[in-house]
């Protein structure tokens, strides 16, 4: 009994205060968002005083004076994010198959380096680089330049989950398909892609969110007259935080949370499929 006396002195896993710090951490992370959410329902022109509950600022976002501007910005943001995520996921899927299934080849690490440049370089430097490049080749800044930029910086974000998933898939599936005379495209389309799909989906969602989130690079290369939601909000905030901005922010916030919850749920069902297939 005496032997255990000292090892039971304390629970070695627990540290006093760590729960408290975790709570402080969550408080700091959520307090600003919750405050903005609450104030977006404030029925008062002043953003300081509480004037009762109201949905007037949400109505204002959709029908107010600036509604047209925000609608156009939202359309630009969503259409660019959708296209950038689709194109970058397609490229990243091909690249991941080339890297993971391509065997050893010369320049493999150089290739890794190239793919990961957009993640490693600070955003402001990427922004400057693209602005200089587009103005040197004489491309008019606008929707097109934003789309190109978004495709480029989404590639590594789409690549990472796809390559990770692909590494977990045994190559015997492809070999079996080849043995049964499937050509390369059919092997990909009917054998590899269905197994790889969860990875492609999370790559797509990640790229989609990263594209929607971007402010700095878009702000540099958007040119005159074209706005995405972040650049439109930034422009408005420069003149002070107005209640309709808080309503718009709350809507975007809820959209992001919805997307993340969706990918979380996809991730969970995916894992349960995995464990099932392991049992078989």
């Amino acid at each position: 009994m005496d032997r255990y006396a000292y090892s039971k002195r304390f629970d070695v896993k627990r540290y006093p205060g760590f729960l408290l710090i975790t709570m402080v951490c969550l408080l700091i992370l959520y307090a600003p968002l919750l405050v903005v959410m609450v104030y977006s329902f404030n029925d008062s022109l002043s953003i300081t005083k509480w004037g009762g509950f109201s949905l007037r600022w949400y109505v204002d976002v959709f029908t107010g004076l600036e509604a047209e501007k925000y609608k156009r910005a939202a359309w630009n943001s969503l259409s660019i994010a959708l296209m950038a995520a689709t194109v970058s996921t397609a490229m990243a899927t091909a690249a991941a198959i080339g890297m993971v299934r391509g065997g050893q080849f010369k320049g493999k690490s150089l290739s890794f380096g190239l793919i990961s440049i957009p993640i490693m370089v600070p955003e402001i430097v990427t922004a400057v680089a693209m602005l200089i490049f587009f103005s040197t080749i004489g491309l008019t800044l606008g929707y097109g330049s934003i789309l190109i930029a978004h495709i480029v910086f989404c590639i590594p974000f789409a690549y990472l989950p796809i390559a990770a998933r692909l590494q977990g898939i045994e190559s015997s599936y492809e070999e079996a398909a080849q043995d049964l005379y499937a050509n390369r495209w059919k092997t990909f389309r009917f054998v590899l892609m269905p197994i790889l799909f969860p990875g492609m989906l999370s790559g797509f969602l990640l790229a989609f969110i990263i594209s929607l989130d971007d402010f700095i690079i878009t702000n540099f290369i958007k040119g005159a007259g074209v706005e995405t939601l972040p650049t439109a909000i930034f422009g408005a905030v420069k003149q002070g935080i107005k209640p309709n901005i808080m309503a718009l922010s709350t809507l975007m916030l809820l959209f992001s949370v919805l997307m993340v919850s969706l990918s979380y749920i996809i991730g969970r069902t995916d894992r349960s499929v995995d464990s099932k297939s392991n049992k078989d």
Partner: protein
Amino acid sequence: MAAFGSGSTVSRTFAPVRNWLLMPTWLTVGIFMLLPLLLILVYSFLTKEFRGGVIWEFSLAAYDQFIFDRGLFGDAEPSIEWTYINIFLRSLVQATVATLFCLLIGFPTAYFIATRPPSTRSLWLFLITVPYWVNLLIRTVSMKFLIRESGPLNQALLGLGIIDTPLEIINTNLAVQLGLFYSYLPFMVLPIYASVERYNFSLSEAGADLYAGKWTILRRIILPSIKPGIIAGCILVFVPSLGAFLAPDLLGGAKTFMIGSLIEEQFKGNAGNWPFGSAASMILLSLVLFVLLFYARSQAREQL
């Protein structure tokens, strides 16, 4: 970085078309990312044009302007120009302090989550990562709204009688650090969490059996074992903080100017100076590459 290649299973199915599969990505990143980065280097050695843009003439003026003050007409005796050096030093200090802040809060949080039962662990992680997915601009604006002089934070503190006069947080270094901390905290928590999760707690038990106190165990056993996670977290916070634009721009004032704002200013409107902005970008990029190289070397040493 395990996700980057080096698969253990090698099938020959796609090997013959490897280059065709990689070509679109090589071309896209090569043309629209690598080439532009090289162009910055070229631009930093060109002569500035007064309405924004450049004249294609070789010049060291951009780097010279960074370090020396030659008077209004460029003919005075050169002296050291501290303005820009100070902005870089301030950015380094701000990023360092933000990283330490994140470590101080992020480590206990990551440790706490990693020691939860597996059933609740993913929920805790989910709670930590959700704010990260909310638009960075919206998060920064929310922070500005919360801490401004007549904002809810001051109202609450005044209402509770904790303070008599509103705290002036906005436009200070503290506000910028708070913004950076808030922006990048999940980057600190996730790698440390991954390390703690792999940590073998029987080592702590062994320490306790040898009469080590709780905090001795933390300092002498746990922290050294999870060092790779801590270093990774610090780099993931430090690097984006160094070049941050939104936090210093929205939460800070003239006295909290950082590299990001300095660069942005050179490319906005007609008053800009493209070669100077390019030079500042190159210096920032070198700092970041230096940190990443240091990280790569420490990783390589870890694996030996």
